[in-house]
């Protein structure tokens, strides 16, 4: 099997349960796998939560991890996809001194060219938001850091897959 290390996005559909984050993270921790990013949100099905986990590992290992995740009683189903089959976005926020907006006109060009937007402005600072692929956020960060950034943060990925994930059908089949 493929032992090449690649970036995979794991999607886990679960019951909305208080201890589940601990249970799922323990699976990674026990095997010394560093999670690149993690996002938990509601899913397309009411009452079903979705974990989106980005990890760098081999396909051989990711398959075993999926098995261990699915073994948890309150996990409905887990999938993994490579980058080609994942549509994802991450979001970056940049807090910058307000005076720079006027002193450094180039900033406005950068905002425009990168399709970022200004979320809020006040006398002390303004906040830029940029959604996109990781490289786009990283590039914007590089461009802005020349001028000085007061705060910077980047979210985990939220992802949709090209493949179908038939959770509703699956839930029905369990109920019958």
């Amino acid at each position, binding site marked *: 099997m493929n032992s090449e290390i690649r970036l995979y996005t794991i999607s886990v559909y*679960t*019951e909305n349960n*208080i*201890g589940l984050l*601990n*249970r799922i993270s*323990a699976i990674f921790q*026990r095997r010394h796998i560093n999670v690149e990013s993690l996002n938990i949100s509601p899913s397309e099905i009411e009452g079903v939560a979705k974990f989106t986990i980005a990890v760098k590992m081999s396909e051989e290992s990711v*398959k*075993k991890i999926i*098995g*261990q995740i*699915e*073994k948890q*009683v*309150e*996990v*409905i189903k887990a999938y993994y996809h490579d980058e080609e089959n994942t549509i994802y976005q991450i979001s970056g926020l940049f807090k910058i001194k307000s005076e720079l907006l006027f002193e450094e006109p180039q900033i406005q060009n950068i905002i425009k060219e990168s399709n970022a937007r200004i979320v809020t402005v006040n006398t002390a600072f303004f906040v830029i938001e940029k959604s996109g692929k990781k490289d786009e956020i990283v590039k914007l960060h590089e461009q802005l850091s020349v001028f000085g950034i007061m705060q910077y943060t980047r979210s985990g990925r939220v992802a949709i897959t090209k493949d179908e994930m038939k959770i509703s059908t699956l*839930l029905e089949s*369990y*109920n019958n």
Partner: protein
Amino acid sequence: MEAHTIKDNKTSIKATEKISGSEAIVRCLIEEDVKIIYGYPGGAIMPVYDELFKYQDKIHHVLTRHEQGATHSAQGFARISGKVGVAIATSGPGATNLITGIADAQIDSTPMVCITGQVPSHLLGSDAFQETDIVGISTPVTKWNCQVTKAADIPGALAKAFYIARSGRPGPVLVDITKDAQFEEFDFSYEKCTKIRSYNPVPKTDISSIEAAAKLMNAAKKPMIIWGQGIILSQAEEQLKALVEKAGIPAAWTILGASAIPTSHPLNVGMLGMHGNYAPNVLTNECDVLIAIGMRFDDRVTGKLDEYARQAKVIHFEIDPAEIDKNVQTEVAVLGDAKLSLEAILPLINENTHTEWHQKFKELYAIEYEKVIKNDLHPTKEGLTMGEVIKEINIQSKGNAAIVTDVGQHQMIACRYAEFNKTKSNITSGGLGTMGFGLPAAIGAKMAAPEREVVSISGDGGYQMTIQELGTIFQQKAAVKVVVLNNDFLGMVRQWQQLFFDKRYASTEMVNPNFVAIAEGYYIKAKKVTKREELAEAVAEMMASKEAYFLEVCVEKEGNVFPMVPSGASVSQIRLE
């Protein structure tokens, strides 16, 4: 939970009544047909003990001498009966003392429900007296766990706990219940859990995988079956025997699979793994089709994975999808319950004898007999061997005893040489290797199956890890036969030190107490044997005893267990000396 009312207009039966959370806990146990539980009281679980006092005619609570003993007793109970074992403890140290047994039950797939008391919910997270995050601590070693802070959630949580513990691949669950939830009153009603929508305990068997497996098995020239505890857990003993006999396939077992097919069966070729039999280990690397049933390719079974059965096509019958291809790549995976899968495949299997192939097992057995078994069972040297003690127990129990072992040399010797006529006769800590498991597990086994002869066999090391449970034996009048094979060493570690650390016996020599006096201190009949000529009579006296009996046998100090697959070696590099 909603109140269920009025089943019948005329009688107007109300199915609910107002009771406390603690009473509800006991009532849930009664609903689940629990008759014996093991535990230890303390502050945060006192309301439940108060109810247990009230319901003592329905549920027998066994006061162990340590919470670890409660879990191992519950495990022994579960392993011999196939039912869910129940252990109960207070918060904090009571709860943390359960962890070893829970971890043991998790890795050995033993159904167990643990109930812990917890500080009142308003104190959670405040570092209150005897507060510990037992849900957090037990998460990696439980099949499922939860914390309950409202009385109304108790029946649902316990119903789910029992269902999860016993269904699919069994395992331990823990329900942590705050003290205020135990005091709170609510409308009680109980409904057994039969389904959880996110949980598919028994994957459906795909008929095409059955057909593919049958085709491979029928075409095989040198097939070999290796079975594990899955056979016992799914009660597939008869089906396995039928398959083995029809197909004429030699079958070997993992330590937890022992006793599923009688030892004397001609196609039972013995134990796999590090201290298993010579033939099945060597021939694992010569068979053409390896049929694994209800086992998980533990490293103690496979030795070096890169050199394990590389020539063989592997068929894996397994209930847990996560086990497929985890350690060994399979050609055909048959998911599902072992009993159902074996029933389905049996009609598709051709009759065969594989006489020539079977002859190979016999030849290798003869070598093992000459080099190892003869000296273990019929020693000519002065010192007593562990093997001859097991042999004597075999003779006098006629192979009908349930053997409960601890962990170490005596465990390997007992599993190698014990004769099992009945299934569920070998209770041991396999995956976790928990020293101290044996004595309390034997108590649980004896209480679950009082009609059976239960013999606990321990080494002098592991015995002292839970020796306080002699108190439980005495108080419960549990007629457990306790054998300690004493070599004044932590024998298995010493053996490794001898073989791999140039005989540097670091902290393995034990200066032991007067074991007979300790047993007698608990008013248990006791005897010590140091000479061969005393052995048979002492074992006879032990077996004849209607009460608990303690027998210490002083065996040779530096005896080793062979064969042995050294750590990191291939199964075909198994050493006979």
